[in-house]
């Protein structure tokens, strides 16, 4: 009798489970245009519609560079907003890198629960959620005037003529150098940050630095980020816009065409001339900064603004920066600094408090909050309501102004399909330094592209649409 009871219990539960598993996934709510929140052009401190009942807004954020400063800023922002809007509780949750992707994916699959507001990088790290309907466009909630305060180029966060996330903080890919080593090697220590080296000048500088007994370049390939940096810094130099690379990704052009792949030869040149530290393949990138660049054992390093922030603070006046990469290409992208929308915030499509979420994001763009963001974190906010006189370093000001008013070079990694970025470019850099030839690396890229097109055809279509729309 007991066995029968257990049998029926398990059978019923199994059938229920099977039916539940076979049910289609929760459909994301299709974004409908809500009444936009009208704002003053310069001071978006308007009275938002107060919710009738007490609500909680949950924000999931990721630290860019200075967790303590960012945490302070978030807590303060939440407290100040709650003061103005007593019916709204703002809960800010710092996510770790390890559970950042899985937590969001689980929430998107469930289409319920937190967060209301989610952190995104730009481009391909955000658009799949827009395509899948997991987020609603911020342009449905903010007035057009608000976008006049944001960087002039919002292509990386625009799709279907809508802006999907609100950019907050910036990042950049620059070439950092040690002024003391430069001086010792007979190179100009106080370079104009906006003036790039030509490729030949860069190689000559490396030779001089190596002759003084230093490594020319500090690097760490573990994790693959440096491979991504090479891709972002070099692959774009033959082009005017990231959309110019899309044809090769979606299969309309051949990656073996030199204009798409000759940049690998530049990386190989750096490898063959042994300009990097010999343990490059067993170090993380940040480890190489600490071990070789910060300690004065290497003359230069490729670094992100957020990643190098603590190193530059530690080195003080010894750290110099070149805002443009060593130049060998003739495309427009070779002529500008890379400065991008790094910390962006989007509203989940299942959030029951979208208007309030949009209003909170708008609150973060008040001058007081923007200035506090810089003071607390050292990171540059992307809004012209930020008081740029607060910017301490001249080169940061140059980069910020170019990004806000002229348009900076996009960070190419944020435009490549995630699989292609990871298995072609990141892995390619590692393979090159592990002994592969340039031809092998290019062939691997071609294989990965073919695999991506076969395994993710819907994404290929989206990329095609994105390119066609962006080129209009």
């Amino acid at each position, binding site marked *: *009798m007991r066995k029968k009871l*257990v049998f029926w219990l398990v059978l019923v*539960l199994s059938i229920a489970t099977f039916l539940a598993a076979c049910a289609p996934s929760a459909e994301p709510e299709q974004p409908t245009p809500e009444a936009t929140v009208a704002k003053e052009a310069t001071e978006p401190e308007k009275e938002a519609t107060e919710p009738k009942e007490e609500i909680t807004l949950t924000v999931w954020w990721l630290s860019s560079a200075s967790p303590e400063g960012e945490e302070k800023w978030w807590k303060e922002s939440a407290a100040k907003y709650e003061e103005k809007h007593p019916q709204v509780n703002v809960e800010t949750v710092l996510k770790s890198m*390890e559970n950042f992707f899985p937590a969001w994916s689980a929430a998107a699959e469930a289409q319920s629960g937190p967060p209301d507001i989610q952190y995104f990088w730009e481009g391909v790290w955000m658009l799949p959620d827009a395509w899948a309907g997991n987020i609603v466009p911020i342009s449905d909630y903010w007035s057009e005037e608000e976008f006049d305060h944001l960087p002039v180029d919002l292509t990386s966060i625009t799709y279907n003529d809508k802006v999907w996330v609100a950019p907050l903080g910036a990042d950049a890919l620059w070439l950092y150098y040690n002024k003391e080593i430069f001086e010792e090697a007979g190179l100009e220590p106080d370079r104009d940050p906006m003036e790039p080296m030509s490729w030949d000048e860069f190689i000559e500088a490396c030779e001089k630095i190596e002759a003084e007994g230093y490594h020319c370049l500090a690097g760490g*390939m573990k994790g693959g980020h440096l491979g991504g940096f090479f891709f972002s810094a070099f692959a774009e130099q033959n082009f005017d816009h990231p959309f110019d690379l899309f044809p090769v990704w979606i299969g309309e052009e051949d990656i073996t065409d030199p204009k798409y792949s000759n940049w690998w030869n530049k990386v190989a040149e750096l490898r063959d001339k042994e300009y990097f530290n010999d343990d490059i393949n067993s170090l993380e990138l940040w480890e190489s900064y600490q071990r070789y660049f910060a300690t004065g054992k290497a003359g230069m390093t490729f670094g992100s603004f957020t990643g190098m922030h603590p190193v530059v603070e530690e080195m003080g006046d010894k750290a110099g920066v070149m805002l443009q990469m060593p130049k060998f290409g003739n495309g427009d992208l070779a002529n500008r600094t890379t400065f991008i929308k790094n910390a962006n915030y989007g509203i989940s499509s299942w959030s029951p408090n979208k208007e309030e979420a949009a209003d909170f994001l708008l609150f973060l763009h008040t001058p007081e909050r923007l200035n506090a963001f810089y003071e607390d974190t050292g990171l540059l906010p992307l809004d012209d309501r930020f008081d740029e006189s607060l910017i301490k370093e001249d080169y940061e000001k140059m980069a910020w102004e170019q990004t806000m008013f002229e348009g900076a070079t996009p960070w190419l990694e944020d435009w490549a399909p995630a*699989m292609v970025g990871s298995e072609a470019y990141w*892995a390619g850099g*590692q*393979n090159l330094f592990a002994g592969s030839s340039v031809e092998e690396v290019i062939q691997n890229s071609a294989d990965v592209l073919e*695999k991506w097109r076969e395994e993710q055809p819907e994404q290929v279509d989206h990329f095609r649409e994105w390119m066609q729309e962006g080129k209009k």
Partner: protein
Amino acid sequence: MRALNRKTLSERPVLYMAPMIFVLVFVYFYPMVKVVVDSLRWPVDGKEVLSIKAFRLLVKDETFRMALMNNAKMLLCVPVLVILSLIVAILLYEVTKGSRFYRFLIFLPYILPIPVVGAVFSYLLQYNGSLNTFLRAVGLDMLAIDWLGNRTIAIFSIMGVFMWKQLGFGSLLFLSRLMTVSEELYDSAKIDGAAWLQRHWYVTVPQVWGIMEFLGVIQAINVLGWSFSYVYVMTQGGPGTSTFVMDYYIYKTAFEYRNMAMASAGATALLLITTIFIILQRRIVRQREIEYA
């Protein structure tokens, strides 16, 4: 009030267990079924249709094949680990002074969290890390290789760390069994003139054979289930994709590439392989139960 009888009394425990069974089914069974069902769905024109396309693409996927091969290589750890664990257990059994301290030392790695072990060994095994510095200092430069940065060696480095961590568990299992083996068997063997190695081959090994079978299967399941943590901390699948394992492939495909169909297909494949080992393990346990009964 209903009269308590033998029938009522035998149903009650099952009813008390029902909530737990309910939770177990939904925590374990539901995700498994969902993953299998998702692996049979393929997006076509914005809708999901029933298809085995994900499996066909999985078989073609070089990265998945690399991951499968790496899991197979890691399974080579298992016989090595079983034999090493037995040897260590025998040594621990025979040592008299300081045996508790040695047991503690051997078991300590097992209780350390994998991320901690991974992080520490990531430093030790760097090209200019402590291990290579030591090897160069003693004149063994040819052994000072790039343990985690060499595409051929990296997966074996991870296997080494896995074995270092798991050694304690197996050793303790064997030691527990050895303590129940009658001393008379060893005395008889000594009287018959058996040397140390012969005593352990003819007496110890047959006595612990059941543990060896059991440990082999458990460690194989550990290889399949826990290799993700080692790879994530130590190499992140690199250099290139040379240290991808199946669960790391699933993680990357699901959460970075956002390809749930392919990730589910990979997870289904891993589930099938692990199920085979679990069935094997159950059979061994059942066999032992019958023998002891």
